[in-house]
């Protein structure tokens, strides 16, 4: 099957205080439609950088990215913005909700951007927040919410346009175990609905829910483990659980 997301030779070099830092050194990755890929690795291995590049939040130093078969690495900022609002949902580790907007407005904003009517945006938002268990806080500002609540709102925001691909950077990294479990079950639902998921995580329990685990070290893919077949049968899941 044609991958929904494909990267070839993806590299990123930062210059920090005159010193070049090689964050990514040529990463190849293919993500099939509906697949759930977990990216793991130690701090500083380039996980977040990879995700940022795939979402167009940063520019690669070298390499190519295809989204749905279309090369996107050379898109302008404005073109990327349009791609993101329609095809990619992004969840940050630190939520990054717009502090001046209420929960409801944060979630409705991407829907309004693609031209959904206020009534429909409102309906989508109500459904999502209901499912995520934060419907009671719709008029609150993000600053008044707990970390778990903020992350669920961020997830709702990323999902409101039903993007083909959801990219999430440590979505459970700042959550207690109950909240983490809730977020994870929601991610499973998202995948069950046919959306593609790529998430960066430290958490083996989260990774265990994935179809495939890609391990990064020093900016390179060092290992790929298929945990489940496309038909859902566990292949290496037990192995990873032992490791964790």
């Amino acid at each position: 099957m044609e991958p929904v997301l494909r990267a070839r030779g993806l590299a990123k070099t930062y210059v920090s205080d005159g010193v070049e830092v090689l964050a990514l050194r040529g990463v190849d990755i293919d993500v099939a439609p509906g697949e759930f890929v977990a990216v793991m690795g130690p701090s500083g291995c380039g996980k977040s950088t990879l995700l940022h590049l795939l979402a167009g939040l940063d520019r690669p130093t070298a390499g190519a990215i295809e989204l749905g078969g279309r090369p996107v690495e050379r898109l302008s900022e404005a073109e990327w913005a349009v791609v993101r609002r329609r095809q990619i949902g992004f969840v940050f580790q630190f939520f990054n909700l717009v502090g001046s907007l209420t929960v409801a407005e944060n979630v409705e904003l991407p829907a309004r951007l693609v031209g959904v009517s206020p009534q429909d945006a409102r309906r989508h938002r109500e459904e999502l927040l209901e499912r995520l268990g934060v419907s009671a806080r719709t008029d609150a500002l993000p600053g008044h919410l707990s970390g778990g609540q903020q992350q669920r709102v961020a997830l709702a925001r990323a999902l409101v346009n039903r993007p083909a691909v959801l990219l999430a950077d440590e979505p459970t990294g700042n959550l207690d175990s109950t909240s983490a479990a809730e977020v994870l079950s929601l991610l499973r639902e998202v995948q069950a609905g046919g959306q593609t998921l790529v998430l960066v995580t430290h958490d083996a329990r989260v990774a265990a829910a994935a179809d495939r685990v890609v391990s990064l070290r020093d900016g390179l893919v060092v290992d790929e483990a298929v945990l489940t077949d496309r038909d859902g049968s566990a292949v290496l899941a037990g192995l990873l659980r032992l490791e964790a």
Partner: protein
Amino acid sequence: MTSVYLRLAFAGLRRRRLQAGLTVVVVAAATAALTVALGVGRVADRPFERTFAETNGAHVIARTFAGSDADLTLLERLPGVTASTGVVPTAFTSFAHDGRTFGLQLVGVLATPPEVSRPLVVEGSWPAPGQVLLERSFARFLGLEPGDLVPAAGGGAGLEVSGIAVVPKGEAYPSAQPGVAFVREETLADLPASPVGRANLLGVRLADPAAADAFAAQAHRLLGRTADVEPWTEERADAAETTRTISVVLGFYAVFLLVAGGAVLATLVGGRVAAQARDVGLLKTTGLTPRQVGLVFLLEQLAIGALGCMVGVLVGWLATPAFTARAASLVNASETPPLEPAQTALVVVAVLALVAVFTLVPAVVAARRPAVETLRGGERALGGRSRLGRLADRLRLPLPAVLGARSSFSRPGRSALTALSLALTVAAVVATLGMEASLDVATDPPPAPPLVQGLDTPAWDPVDDDAGEGATLRPIVYGLDALLLFVGLVNLLATLLLAVRERVREFGLLKAIGLTPRQVSGTVVWSQAVLGGAAALVGIPLGLAFFRLAIGLTGGSDEFAYPAAWTVALLAPAAVLVVVALTAPLARRAAAIRVTEALRYE
């Protein structure tokens, strides 16, 4: 411990170079404005009295014309007289200059300046025989300088200008005509008999200056109808009349510059510290008490403030003479000495005190809040949806407009400060428009040549007063306008730059969600436009109120005019346009910052 504070303070400076640089510029502008305001204020402070004291002016002056048999020296023997000028010969003459004929009263002097009614030489030197010392307003009006030649009436050899002097006159030339100049008595005697009208005068100083009016009446009885007697109070009243308008104009600018300078400091320093609430939380987390946090911020701001003060004092010292020289000439005051170090020190202390207050108040307010709250981010936000946002929604405005309107009111404190600071700039513009309108009104008909009994006064063309007071006042008013508008513009730019910079992180978030850079910069342009509109609504009445206050101080003088209604009405859209025009490029640049980089901004 002190070194820890210093290190923290300078770390703050290094990390926020843009704000630090802006604060230096703003503090410098405020300091320079205050320095100039103080200098100008000193000139406008009772100029006649100061000049009168410096020249040891005569409290009563009597004048007799050729043919009069009155004996002026009788006055010297009256009780209460402490000093006298003696009999001074004078001559009325006229001369041609630039194709016009100007009237001139020449006053005879000896080789050394007299004790009483001593002209103060401010340029050049005391006249030698064949030379002439010109009264300043007259010289300035004609553009004559030491070394120039004043052609003699009747075609004799001309008089070389030896210098320029200040005398206590009620009105400056051309409000009072003819012009006044001093020549040696022998030069005066050599002037041709015609067309010259001769007169003698004598001035006395009194033990009790308040008794001048009574003394003048007595002198008039003594000398008879052929003599003119004038107490100094008449000149003083004239001076008060002419100086009042000008003093109020100068004082008005001095106060406005003071307020504008203070407000700029408040918005920039106060706003800057308020925006650093997160740092306050961090410092407290590391174990600093609220008081110590205040100290760190104080050190940081005072270091910037001191630098700004130095620059401002330098600029102020360089700029002040340009204003004071013209102002002094206008109000007929003696040239004001350069600003004294003590005064400058006062300005610096005042500015630094303002910096300290505007730093400590928001720092302490932030330090009193729980650390967790400040760490969570920025200011305390208002809960719920703002009415404005809902209105923008209902009006089906484009999304950036809705977001911008929301954003303006989500940080109420910061927005209020921004709007206030923009309002002050608008108010300054309104006030300058009023001054401009008033300049056109401040015109009186030219005085007719005085009718002098028994004297064949030489004819001269009366000079239109409009060309005088208006012409001299205009450059000063424009100079002060420029200074005021400069402070306003610095304020505006600094405010907008900070407003945009504070949103960079939010820009990153909005782009991550899917707003294009254009939509992102649109939100900030809209939000600043909303504030600009609000500022105009506050600033226009504020400026008019300020202007009205200035008029009130002159006693409802009809020398002032309100700016035309249409100019004021145009000001509101103009303010919004200027704000948009300045914000747009700043916002575009900020919106181009990559998301990952933008998210690292604080």
